[in-house]
């Protein structure tokens, strides 16, 4: 008998009587609230607060022009900039694919468009069709993700509702720069992945006055 059949046989003999699945609909007092911080119904604001608390940063911008300006101002030392966003083609290497992910070894900054953000934990959901290469969001020294300000869901239940039955080969939530606290619980940003993580939230209603 194969190990598969042996294992399944023992499990069938040993598993207890069927127990039903609970509902995962959030009870009324849902969402993450922090009484000290007042109104938490503004998901974008909460998203930014949490993101900053976990070592990331955010800019609310009027559009791609503004993003390009900020990147020029903020990333002066980053030589190789790769992006999946055609709007940034003037300033970044924008390609559909690479032969080998190892070609991305020396990327200084990757700018990718994510699907949405999650207010309770500052994470952004991105699937591989927006990564160019799966390795890119991890191998790059710095990462910037772009979402629309209206695309911030309050919590992970809403996040999965939104993902639904979406088809992807690989997808990931990214919350802040890579980090570790393995040495005496001292938090260090930049473990193996990006040392910095920036999220641009596009707010179409914003005038181009450029505040962020």
């Amino acid at each position, binding site marked *: 008998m194969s190990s*598969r059949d042996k294992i399944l046989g023992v499990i069938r003999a040993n598993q207890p*009587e069927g127990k039903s699945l609970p509902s995962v609909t959030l009870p009324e007092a849902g*969402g993450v609230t922090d009484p000290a911080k007042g109104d938490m119904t503004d998901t974008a604001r909460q998203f930014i607060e949490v993101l900053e608390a976990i070592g990331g940063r955010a800019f609310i911008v009027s559009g791609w022009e503004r993003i390009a300006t900020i990147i020029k101002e903020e990333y002066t030392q980053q030589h190789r900039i790769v992006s999946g966003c055609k709007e940034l083609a003037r300033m970044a290497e924008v390609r559909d694919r690479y032969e080998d992910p190892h070609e991305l070894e020396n990327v200084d900054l990757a700018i990718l468009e994510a699907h949405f953000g999650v207010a309770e934990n500052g994470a952004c959901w991105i699937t591989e069709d927006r990564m160019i290469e799966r390795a890119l969001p*991890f191998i790059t020294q710095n990462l910037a993700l772009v979402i629309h300000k209206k695309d911030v869901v309050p919590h992970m239940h809403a996040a999965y509702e939104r993902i639904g039955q979406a088809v992807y080969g690989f997808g990931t939530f990214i*919350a802040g720069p890579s980090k570790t606290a393995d040495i005496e619980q001292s938090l260090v940003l930049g473990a193996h992945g990006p040392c910095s993580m920036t999220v641009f939230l596009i707010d179409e209603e914003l005038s181009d006055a450029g505040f962020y």
Partner: protein
Amino acid sequence: MAQDHAHLATEFNKDEPRVDWHDKTLWFIREKRDKAAGRVPEWEWLRDTASAIKENVLSHLSEYLVQFEEQAGRNGVVVHWAADAEEHNEIVYGLLKKHGVDKMVKSKSMLTEECHLNEFLSEHGVEVIDTDLGERVVQLAGEPPSHIVLPCIHKKKEEIGEIFHEHLGTPAGNADPQFLTHAARLHLREKFITRRVALTGVNFAVAETGEFVVCTNEGNADMGAHLADVHIACMGIEKLIPLRQHLGVFLRLLTRSATGQPITTYSSHFKQPRPGQEMHIVLVDNGRSVHLGRKDFRNSLKCIRCAACFNTCPVYRRSGGHSYHTAVAGPIGSILSPNLDMKKYSDLPFASTLCGSCSNVCPVKIDIHEQLYKWRQVIVQDGNAPVSKTMAMKTMNWVLSNPSVYHTAGKAGRWFMGKVPFTVNNGLNPWYKQRDMPEVPKESFGEWYKRNRK
């Protein structure tokens, strides 16, 4: 048993300032967990829901496994089944041989610790590089992890500085965490870039979709997997959850319980291999299917390996992970390990005061302290108690079952002084080593009552 928990813990306690440091470091994480959980108004609902989902999983495990296998297969992932640690190790080694590879990177997987994969592969000439920073530290030090989430939590930064000086050539005396982490980043980046096979663990596997989720803060699982030609993911069969939407429940609980973060930096959902890549999943039983048949103990299989029970455990904090002499230490390890080898781990269910804090922090509501109590009964009845202890217990029971014996024996504490509950071993009195005995009163309460009432 070579060295049991009590002996190893006694060794650990010889350096009291270090015990204080270890205790405070872990308590700090417990406090961070409290803060993070406190920000979620529906925290207790989340725990109830997660527990109920996992109860459902255990009661339909065979169906979910078959469903997962089908879905993963459809996604282009190769599914393997390993009955035990040996078969798991052989499967991994077989894949390496097939690709003619003798070097690989591995992100954190407690299952591979449980199976002693590193030792096995090393004996077969394969070099394994653990890429989680904490795991790399203990690997270089030649030690097992002492904590399932924070593998080198028992090491001080000065010691890590020395290890890095010796193995990575960092300057002697530099113990700055920022500096050391950066040195490890450079050291491991070279490994990520050059290795063709990457092994990862699995936090959750979804039966509905055949995808699996790996959570890291460092990004090491992703760095390994996305750069390698072959990705091998190893998981215990209990890691399944029914639906993708259930991830919402578990990802909200996991990291808040583990470190007090709202989520790990990366929660990566692997569904299909990338073009040209091979992806393998090894489903490992290693005693789990048998454990499922133990009514009193099966729900320990709900564990999602957050280690909240480690951080809150007053015994773990003051005895260190290595005193548990097993891959998964702490309270949860103390109820999981006897299933693997009851004799070898017969000491672990006794390494607890049964204070119950572990059960309260558990995000999937495993009744850990009650199982510790129940394991004690099973272990004793299985004949694993020392004869002297059994004799002492029998004597104690005889005295306490016979009021007349108790009253003559116990006249104002005299019998008690010798027997209950301090010196069941009848050896030198371990109570008195660092504690004074209570003063013996003139009369017992019973004697007082007889004189003063009725």
